[in-house]
């Protein structure tokens, strides 16, 4: 067999085993809306851990980070900080979100806004921003699969057909099992990812330099500026680092799918314990950094940094190993992609279409519409992936600039009884508009500061000021201990 064939067969085997496990996990249960989206709220510490870890370690960490380490250097360190700090933030907000979610039967992030603020316009707005951000994140994963398959086939399969194949696999995978399937495939995927990361992160420096230490010594001698900020970039310095770490660690759990993942937990304590141990998982990313830095010296001058990691593997290891790494990479893209597409389509069917267009739909009809939406949203992401070219990391930062604008509405909604609906709407609209404007006009970073972070500050300020300007709610409402009971439940 040719190297390309060996490699592709290995990838196919790994993806096939993954899909089979997902299918078996889902097949024995009747899939109503509650099972499909939050798996009946029965996951313990371990399954929540793998589900959340599965959503954290995506193509972004695998190809995106190695690419930025290779082409930009120092600023990429922001990823180690923000993932760790995101769990610190989650310690305070996820258990509370879970608590109100259970009490009010919430399945999605928009449910949270609907129950807390009781306003259809705000709910729809949250829904639309959430779906848009998820489609961008989905595009990132599909682009990643395209890169992996085309390199693994030794450029025999083009990027576009590879991405189309990935999408078909993905849709089948989601139809088969919903969120339960995803959690179980996460276990396989994470095990493979860890093996691949260790083999690459330790193996490459060992092969070319005799160890990680000598590799860094060589890099520090040849390109010392690459190891610190702003690295190889003109404007990603310390102000960018601090603002980006704040934006992404605060925005992390504002992703609609993490709300969904939180609702799968069995108890609030499960989530609190998770928040304590999850940072340790970030350690596995360090190996991706080792690989990226090795590539700087071994395969210099690649025009597309996203090819760095796999090019390095391809020229250093036998084809079957490239297949294992590629298979791990494809699963690493598919598992989160399945979650994103599942979340976005549920949001569309349950929180946008039903309340606005067809209030009489039953839960079963909503579940069916959600499945149809999976195909539509997948196709949109595929088109975006084919026709636009943005780096993987920047795609994620665009998504973060959008979803982090929910932060004031969620956190003040949980802890501050005075926050009002008009204030949250004003803040959200201003925040999203500012972020989009700055990014589209290439003002990101703006004076060295992350554009999404500037938008978030403006948003937060507006929510507080507008809330304080509103009349104080009447005293009977204040007497209630649960601010989620203040408003009548609608929709």
């Amino acid at each position, binding site marked *: 067999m040719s190297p390309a064939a060996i490699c592709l067969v290995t990838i196919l085997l790994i993806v096939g085993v993954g899909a089979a496990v997902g299918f078996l996990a889902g097949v024995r249960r009747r899939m109503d809306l509650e099972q499909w989206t939050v798996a009946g709220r029965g996951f313990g510490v371990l399954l929540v851990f793998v589900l959340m870890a599965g959503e954290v370690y995506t193509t972004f960490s695998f190809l995106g980070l190695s690419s930025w380490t290779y082409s930009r250097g*120092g600023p990429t*360190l922001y990823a*180690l*900080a923000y993932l*760790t*700090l995101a*769990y*610190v*933030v989650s*310690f*305070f907000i996820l258990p*509370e979100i879970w*608590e*109100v979610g259970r009490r009010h039967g919430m399945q999605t992030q928009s449910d949270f806004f609907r129950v807390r603020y009781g306003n259809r316009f705000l709910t729809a707005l949250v829904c639309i921003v959430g779906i848009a951000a998820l489609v961008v994140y989905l595009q990132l994963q599909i682009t990643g699969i395209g890169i992996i398959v085309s390199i693994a086939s030794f450029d025999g399969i083009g990027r576009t057909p590879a991405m189309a194949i990935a999408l078909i696999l993905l849709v089948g995978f989601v139809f088969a099992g919903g969120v339960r399937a995803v959690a179980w495939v996460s276990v396989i995927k994470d095990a493979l990812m860890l093996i691949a990361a260790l083999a690459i992160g330790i193996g490459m420096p060992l092969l070319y330099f005799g*160890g*990680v*230490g*000598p590799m*860094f*010594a060589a890099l*520090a001698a040849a390109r*010392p500026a690459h*190891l*610190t*900020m702003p690295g190889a970039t003109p404007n990603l310095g*310390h102000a960018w*680092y*601090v603002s980006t*770490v*704040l934006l992404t*660690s605060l925005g992390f759990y504002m992703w609609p799918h993490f709300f969904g993942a939180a609702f799968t937990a069995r108890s*609030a304590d499960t989530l*609190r*314990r998770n*928040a*304590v*141990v999850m*940072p*340790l998982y*970030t*350690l596995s990313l*360090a190996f991706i*950094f080792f690989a990226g830095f090795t590539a700087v010296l071994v395969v210099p001058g690649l025009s597309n940094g996203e090819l760095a990691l796999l090019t390095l593997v391809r020229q250093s290891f036998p084809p079957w190993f490239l297949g294992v790494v590629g298979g791990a990479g494809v699963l690493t893209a598919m598992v989160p992609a399945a979650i994103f597409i599942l979340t976005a389509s549920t949001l569309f069917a349950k929180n946008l279409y039903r309340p606005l267009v067809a209030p009489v739909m039953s839960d079963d009809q909503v579940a069916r519409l959600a499945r149809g939406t999976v195909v539509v949203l997948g196709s949109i992401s595929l088109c975006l992936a084919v026709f636009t070219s943005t780096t993987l990391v920047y795609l994620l930062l665009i998504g973060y600039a959008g979803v982090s604008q929910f932060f004031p509405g969620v956190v003040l909604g*949980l*802890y501050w009884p005075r926050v009002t609906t008009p204030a949250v709407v004003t803040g959200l609209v201003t925040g999203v508009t500012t972020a989009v404007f700055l990014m589209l006009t290439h003002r990101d970073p703006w004076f060295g500061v992350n554009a999404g972070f500037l938008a978030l500050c403006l948003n937060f300020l507006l929510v507080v000021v507008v809330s304080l300007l509103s009349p104080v709610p009447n005293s009977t409402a204040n007497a209630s201990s*649960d*601010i989620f009971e203040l408003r009548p439940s609608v929709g």
Partner: protein
Amino acid sequence: MRKPSASAIALALIPFAAMCFSVSLWDRVEPMLFGLPFNLCWLIGWIVLTPLCMAWAYRIEAARNASGGGS
């Protein structure tokens, strides 16, 4: 909603101070520790120390839940 205790928040601010706000103090290559550039080694160290801070915060919150009658 029950607000978290001040001591738990203070513990949570430690990793933020160490990994985020103080970047200009530790973003350097030298001295290399364990063969790693100083900034990378610093962040890896704090990835390990953060769960310790949060385990302490967890104990404080758990004790409060036990005595204060939950949220």
